[in-house]
């Protein structure tokens, strides 16, 4: 799969993805002269999970609304299921599932009635009771089906929204922060289900405020101030954030300054190293897989007994902070 690469100007350039279900080109949305989304381009492959992360107000929800046809772009083009969202037919709309960021169902209807309403909205047949029950069981709301939506917790309302989004078995699913307010156990269950849906050929476009969830995605787009900073695999994003892979290097004796200077002078080691203990150091290399043997060879030459060398996967929160820090630094 070919992904977007940063250019010299730092602006990601789109590279065509084969069999993309969503394709955005220079997508821009302005509200009264203010850019909500600015010159965003990306492709979403069919049957994948595409994560969209970014701080609050970065334009994630606006982007989803542009993709679903709620908004029309001020500039640029977008194609979803080979069609501009503004010109979706009823049949094409029936292929979509959309979970907005806020709870938008009816507080005075019960959980079951709300789900039933959502199912009817997509024209599901009269014998849909079993499907409704399954959806409610999946989000663990079946036992609460008789409760009014206004009387259930915020997390339960999110789960009900998710059930309403998935009840008609859509092909392309837009989820705007579906796991917000959901406990970690259920959140993991949701992600398991999303992967299952992906395995069944469904495409999921998901925004999340939990940066760590980006690891569950096939592709991640990072957005800030309405601009898409990059699109890559989770691993690729880590690589970009720190300028290489991180390796934790531990020896049987403390590092001296000479050894550290020698280590830094290696061509595949980036300048930035971090001491994580008297006998351990975290270094950044070009490629962990190919550079680890060279690292071992250097240690041998230096008569340093290596206890462990292993690739370090920084938490996505740290990756995200690093990306944002770089973004601020670059203006």
């Amino acid at each position, binding site marked *: 799969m070919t992904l977007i690469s940063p250019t010299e100007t730092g602006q990601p350039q789109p590279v065509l993805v084969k069999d993309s279900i969503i394709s955005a080109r220079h997508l821009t949305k302005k509200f009264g002269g203010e850019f909500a989304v600015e010159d965003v381009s990306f492709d979403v492959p069919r049957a994948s999970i595409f994560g969209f992360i970014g701080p609050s107000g970065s334009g994630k929800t606006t982007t989803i609304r542009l993709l679903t046809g*709620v908004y029309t772009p001020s500039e640029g083009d977008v194609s979803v299921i080979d069609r501009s969202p503004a010109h979706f037919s009823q049949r094409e*709309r*029936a292929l979509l599932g*959309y979970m907005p960021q806020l709870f938008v169902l009816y507080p*005075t*209807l019960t959980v079951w*009635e709300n789900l039933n309403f959502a199912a009817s*909205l997509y024209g599901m047949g009269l014998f849909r009771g079993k499907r409704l029950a399954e959806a409610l069981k999946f989000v663990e709301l079946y036992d609460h089906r008789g409760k009014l939506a206004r009387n259930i917790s915020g997390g339960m309302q999110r789960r009900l929204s998710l059930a309403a989004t998935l009840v008609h078995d859509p092909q392309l699913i837009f989820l705007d922060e579906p796991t917000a307010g959901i406990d970690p156990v259920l959140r993991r269950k949701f992600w398991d289900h999303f992967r299952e849906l992906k395995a069944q050929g469904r495409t999921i476009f998901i925004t999340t405020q939990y940066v760590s969830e980006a690891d569950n995605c096939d592709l991640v787009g990072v957005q800030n101030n309405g601009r898409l900073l990059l699109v890559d695999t989770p691993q690729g994003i880590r690589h970009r954030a720190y300028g290489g892979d991180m390796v934790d290097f531990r020896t049987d004796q403390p590092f001296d300054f000479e050894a550290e200077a020698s280590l830094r002078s290696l061509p595949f080691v980036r300048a930035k190293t971090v001491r994580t203990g008297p006998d351990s150091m975290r270094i950044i290399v070009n490629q962990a897989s190919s550079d680890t043997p060279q690292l071992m060879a250097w240690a041998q030459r230096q008569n340093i007994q290596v206890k462990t060398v292993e690739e370090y996967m920084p938490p996505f929160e740290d990756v995200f902070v690093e990306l944002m820090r770089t973004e601020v630094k670059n203006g």
Partner: protein
Amino acid sequence: MGNFFRGIVRSSAFIRKEIFEILRQPRLVATLVLGPFLILFIFGIGYRDQPTVLRTLFVAQPNSAISPQQIETSVKSVGSQLTYAGSTANLDDALNRLRHGQVDLVVVEPVDAVSTIKSNQQAVFTFYHEEIDPVQVTYISYLGWLFVGEVNQEVLRAFAVQGQKEAVNLHASLQDAHQNLSDMRQAVQSGDQVVAQQKQQQLIGNVDAVSLGVATSLGLLDSLKQAQGTAAANANPPQNTLTDLQQNISQLGTSTDTTDQRLARIDKMDKDLTDLDAQLTEFKSIDPSIIVSPFRNKTKSIANIQPTTAEFFALAVLALLLQHLAVTFAALSIVRERNVGTMELFRVSPLSAAEALIGKYLSYMLFGSVIAAILSALLIFTLHVPMLGNWWYFALVIAAVLFSSLGIGFAISIISQTDSQAVQYSMIILLASVFFSGFIMSLDMLWAPVKVISWLLPTTYGTLLLRNIALRGADPNWGLLAALIALGLVLMLISWQLMRRLITTSE
């Protein structure tokens, strides 16, 4: 599953959803049913179809020609609207009592009425009041007109009584005239010129005396006959009879007349005197009140029933309430979808504007019909509002009123941004309906261009149609019903276009 069937499923989602949402508010439903019923019930038992009674104080002038008794009689003649609260000679005191609410009306007698009338001018009774309500002011003006009419009649009645008293003396003069004419006939037949001339002079005296009284007494009677129409008006008026008499008497003495001609004149005079006597007898036998006020009115309706005020208004209330209910529910419906955020879901879903609107129309039509059925049953079987017409026509009109009103509500809802805006617009429609639908005043009282507003309001049609069906037992005015349905269709089309823009057009 075909797209048509899916469309039905999508519309049905709204029917269920709206009904469930309404039923989750039992207090609202109870208020919608019981509120108007209780208002009408209390109005029905509390409304007294009686005019306002005004305590009336009279200011008499010094040396007044009208006695307090005459004033009181006039007041009583007007009816129960006026009660006699006494008489005073001090205008300032009377006005002070009016300001302090001790009396409702002060009537000031004209100053030196006799001189004013003699100078060929009408004497004026002045009515003081402290009302600001234009309807009450009109009412007082009307009562003033009635009162002065009664005073005028009282004066005429006194005049007629006097005429009848004088008629007794006239009758004696006529008897003398008859006797002198009889003697004159004998003198003419016997050729006794001296006696004939003597009787002629006496007869002239009799006729002159009669003519003075008859001119006024029988003049009243003659005016009465003139007013009755052509047959009575053709009869010889008393004044002509008197003129004939006087001419015949003066010509009796002419030398050119033969004896037969003179006897013929005497026969004619005898007939005229008999005629006058008969008219005088007739005049005396008529009640003076009848002479001065010979006609009265009596109204009879050819309608099947005469409903009470509460019954008459009940159907207008029903139409107004159903319109308000439909407008308010529909007005809040779409604006709430927008506020809750579901409109965003609708835009992404395969739902079309027509499917959403049809679902909402059907749900509110269903709900409105149930409310209308309960209210109609309560009005007719509990408050005993008459229902003379066909129930199916009644239901058809109700459905048409609901349909058109929903169109207004949905149009409001789509252009409103918030709940309070929608409620405000609904209240404006309600206010317009109270003033322009013929609810409190007849449509005929409105300037023609303003009636355009009336004909844009379903209540206008509903009130007229429901009253015709229920209170007259008539078939609906099909033209009016067609216009109401056409109004509903136009509004539905507008709502559909607005809804399409809302659902399918992106921001």
